[in-house]
């Protein structure tokens, strides 16, 4: 006797895709990218990675690793020597001391570290608060981890800082995590120690976990960078994320790390060990070299970014486009409201008419409307031509 078999209900391959994945919107950046790709002669200020090649001694360390046959797996957590160098580096520059054996996890970029952190701590429906405009991955990464993304708008008049009152207003009983990114992609906003302390006080009071993405921290042009993890009572409730992509121009190496109390690192490691196993060993060797001997290169690149930033800020203001002087990272986020266009029309018009690519502010969240992001990880000669074209485009 056979049980009756119900007829198949799947009509198209799309039905196989999980609902929470289907609900993720297409990235605004991708659409824009496809159009730029199809054009020639474009000067792109839309690039979110350094224009410098990885310093030679770091590339050479990767080559040596290959020559020595360093091509196997490493410990799930990453090479111990690298984790030790990381803890020293973090202690020196961020004033927080972690234990290399249990409190550091080497990951495939901050991208993986962020994904692990969210997946390790979120139960379905938990709320993650973050300031916006922000890096494009935050909201989708939260959704993929079954969390609820709660954006808190930041404003140019506040220098794109997270205001304590705005944070309080967004809190609910389901609030679990606060995700921070200072210096911020795309605004260049930073927070001082005193300002972070006000945020930290709320986190302690409401028992929030902080995930802090400090990938641009070396690229701070004014005040010394402060990590929220270094504030009193915060180390035990913070997952500190950092990487090599921006400061050492190592995007293609795909290498980053997380530092946090041992239980949290252990939770992240459980996902990492089955999903990734370990970060690539060649990249780990290169990262070690960057930490041990990359400081001068990093400082030289920072100085170049700073001078280009000065140039762009000056030129945009001269054109009558107000812009906040970015305090860190390598993006300018000028307001284009005075042109009467919205971000999308401005960016597409500029691309079509003048072959300059900037990213519409709305790609970084609804609160980015009225702005565009211009990356100054672009050679000076290109920036000079770009600003002339932009001036022509807006007719000034």
């Amino acid at each position, binding site marked *: 006797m056979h049980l009756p078999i119900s007829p198949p209900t799947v009509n198209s391959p799309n039905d196989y895709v999980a609902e929470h994945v289907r609900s993720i919107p297409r990235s605004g950046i991708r659409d824009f*990218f496809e159009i730029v790709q199809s054009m020639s002669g474009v000067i792109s200020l839309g690039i979110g990675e350094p224009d410098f090649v990885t310093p030679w001694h770091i590339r050479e360390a990767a080559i040596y690793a290959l020559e020595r046959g360093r091509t196997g797996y490493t410990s799930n957590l990453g090479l111990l020597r690298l984790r030790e160098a990381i803890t020293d580096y973090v202690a020196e520059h961020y004033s927080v001391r972690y234990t290399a054996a249990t409190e550091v996890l080497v990951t495939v970029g901050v991208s993986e570290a962020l994904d692990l952190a969210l997946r390790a701590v979120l139960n379905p429906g938990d709320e993650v608060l973050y300031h916006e405009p922000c890096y494009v991955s935050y909201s989708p990464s939260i959704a993929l981890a079954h969390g609820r993304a709660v954006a808190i708008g930041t404003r140019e008049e506040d220098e794109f800082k997270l205001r304590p009152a705005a944070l309080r207003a967004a809190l609910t009983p389901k609030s679990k995590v606060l995700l921070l990114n200072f210096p911020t992609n795309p605004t260049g906003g930073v927070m001082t120690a005193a300002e972070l302390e006000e945020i930290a006080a709320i986190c302690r009071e409401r028992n929030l976990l902080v995930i802090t993405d400090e990938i641009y921290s070396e690229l701070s042009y004014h005040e010394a960078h402060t990590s929220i993890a270094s504030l009193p009572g915060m180390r035990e409730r913070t997952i500190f994320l950092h990487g090599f992509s921006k400061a050492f121009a190592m995007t293609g190496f795909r290498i980053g790390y997380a530092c946090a109390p041992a239980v949290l690192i252990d939770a992240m490691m459980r996902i990492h060990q089955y999903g990734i196993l370990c970060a690539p060993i060649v990249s780990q060797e290169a990262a070690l070299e960057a930490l041990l001997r990359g400081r001068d290169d990093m400082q030289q690149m920072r100085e170049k970014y700073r001078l280009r930033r000065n140039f762009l800020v000056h030129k945009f203001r001269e054109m009558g486009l107000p812009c906040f002087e970015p305090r860190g990272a390598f993006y300018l986020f000028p307001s284009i409201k005075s042109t009467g266009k919205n971000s999308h029309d401005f960016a597409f018009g500029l691309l079509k008419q003048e072959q300059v690519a900037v990213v519409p502010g709305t790609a970084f969240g609804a609160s980015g409307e009225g702005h565009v992001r211009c990356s100054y990880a672009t050679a000076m000669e290109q920036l000079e031509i770009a600003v002339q074209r932009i001036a022509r485009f807006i007719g000034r």
Partner: protein
Amino acid sequence: MDEALLSLLEENALAKPETLAAQLQTTPEEIKRRIKQLEEDRVILAYKAIVDDERAKRTQVKAVIEVRVTPEREGGFDRLAHRIAQYSEVQSCFLMSGGFDLLVFIEGKTLQDVAGFVSERLSTLPGVLSTATHFNLKTYKQQGVLRQKAAAEERLAVSP
């Protein structure tokens, strides 16, 4: 401030005063004034193009000469070094520590030019004890600039 200006000019001597001013947060007039001062003080000695001889199809012969000399009681190496540096064939001249004293970079049209310069003029100078001449065979990098172009721009045109 002058240091920042100098490093920008060392990177690109043709940078416009307006661009330099925006980068250094000052006015183009101030930049021009500073540059003029640096030139007058002979901090900036000259502006030159760095030319790839091979691509320019030049058959210039270049050599480096290690020169051993006897220092004079007064003036040490300076007087002789100045004498050597005056020759138009000499591109650069440095006093060195180690097994020889002066390192002289010279350029000539032909091998004979260079050989003649060494044997007839340099070696016969009073005070010159010996010379060792090394000819350039191939250039890979000069004055901080690689011959080979950096890998083509391969970054994604737009990225997050």
